[in-house]
């Protein structure tokens, strides 16, 4: 069990939780299974790593259902169980790198930006932006788009690597725009999970080589390997 240092509401439905502890082993793009209840709901919640500091870890999350509603109710001093770090995160890429986030999909990109060498960062929001200032020190260029598609703000061909996390439709569109280019694009997928460690097979996604587990094979996949048609039907 860990102790919550703070759990603040950033804006409507968006929360930032800081938990005390040593989490230096966590890699960019990985996640933890969070749990702060006994039997109900039965499952823990997979939440990606927003930031790691010397003595704490942060999770940026959107209140979307029963689990995240319970998480949002937690206060400083409350206990929380963290299992992780889990999954394969973003690769440590060098060169011309773009990080592209859509809405709450920005969550895993801050810690990623901190590990990389000042990438260009593109963040898109539906109606209001939040926490974009946190990305400034770690970006070469920071573009914030509100209302439109953040993908319209960049030319993928000018990057060697693009790391994307956002709504499924946006990631699919990003993958389409990168097709045939020399840009290596990685996407971070999201699925409902049960165990989080690869045993239950409920978070399978279709990949060009068959089914892959989001929890252990991902959550980060090469965009060109994702079967986007199958993915959308999942």
């Amino acid at each position, binding site marked *: 069990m860990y102790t919550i240092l703070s759990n603040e509401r950033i804006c409507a439905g968006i929360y930032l939780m800081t938990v005390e502890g040593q989490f230096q082993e966590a890699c960019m793009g990985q996640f933890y299974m969070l749990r702060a209840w006994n039997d*109900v709901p*039965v499952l823990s919640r997979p939440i990606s790593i927003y930031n790691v500091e010397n003595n704490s870890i942060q999770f940026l999350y959107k209140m979307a259902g*029963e689990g995240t509603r319970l998480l949002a109710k937690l206060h400083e001093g409350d206990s929380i169980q963290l299992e992780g770090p889990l999954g394969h995160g973003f690769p440590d890429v060098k060169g011309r790198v773009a990080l592209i986030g859509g809405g709450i999909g920005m969550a895993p990109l801050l810690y990623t930006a901190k590990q990389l060498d000042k990438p260009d960062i593109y963040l898109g929001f539906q109606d209001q932006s939040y926490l974009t200032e946190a990305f400034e020190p770690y970006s070469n260029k920071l573009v914030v788009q509100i209302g439109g598609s953040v993908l319209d703000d960049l030319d993928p061909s000018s990057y060697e690597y693009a790391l994307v996390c956002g709504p499924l439709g946006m990631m699919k569109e990003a993958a389409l725009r990168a097709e045939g280019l020399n840009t290596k694009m990685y996407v971070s997928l999201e699925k409902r999970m049960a165990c989080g460690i690869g045993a*239950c097979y409920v978070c399978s996604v279709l990949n060009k080589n068959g089914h892959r587990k989001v929890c252990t094979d991902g959550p980060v996949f090469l965009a060109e390997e994702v079967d986007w048609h199958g993915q959308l039907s999942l």
Partner: protein
Amino acid sequence: MGSLACNIAGIPFINPIVMASGTFGFGQEYAKQYDINKLGGISSKGLTLEPRAGNSGTRVWETAGGMMNSVGLENPGIDAFLTEEMKFWETIEPVKIVNLGGSNIEEYVLGALKITKDTGERRKDHLRAVDMIELNISCPNVKEGGMAFGIKTNVAREVIREVRQATSLPLAVKLSPNAENIVEMAVMCEQEGADCVSLVNTFSGMKIDIHNRRSVFSNIYAGLSGPAIKPIALRMVHQVARQLSIPVMGMGGITSAADIIEFIMAGAEVVQVGTYNFMNLRAGEELLAGLQSLMLQENISSLDEIRGISY
């Protein structure tokens, strides 16, 4: 400390805690969480003769006190299991149970033959091998076979008779709570030479997305498990166990040592733990410690002393 030892068809279990099929993979993932050699047994992810991709679409949905799954037997197939996963199983001590699924009788029989042959070869080489087959006639998530065999006693009888002839390994039959008559089904399993029955598999359930106006599952129905089903599962184990002379593996919503004791009191020889593995990645280890202290507290010196005591 109270004795936890159990026995099914001459196979000793160091304790009654067996991990249920589909919730524990083949054990490697959980071996990173705790020493799985503390477990009584492991039932494998459901295996079929050929690899299966499983169901498309949403595969999991939480419910009040439970969850539904619609994995649809995604698995690497028996051959891949025997060449790959068995390398790990050779290194571990719990009783090793292969959960065997199928779409038709031939598939079940060929699967059982392969596992039996492999076991014979491994034993010759003094290697650890599969200890038992758990015949899955009750998966609600595959269109053909699976649960189709688990509903009607006479249909199930044929499968069990054929598989019984195909294998010399101890044979458990995993029963569906969706069976027309689960007691009749269990009695038939005993008549056909099964060494054990395990129950219950998941209850067939449904979730409708009211915006899309259709089931969230591409297979329409899915299997309900977790604490929500425990009272019904316990009642079924009680009904079945008192009618049989072969042992019962009891399961359904176990999340505590007290739940284990309840199932033993209902007549189970051992229990299986399923959904709780998702709720607590160290479920096996914690249940074992809890069971030992609960037995001490309740003055239970061996499980034999309380087994079926509630009849």
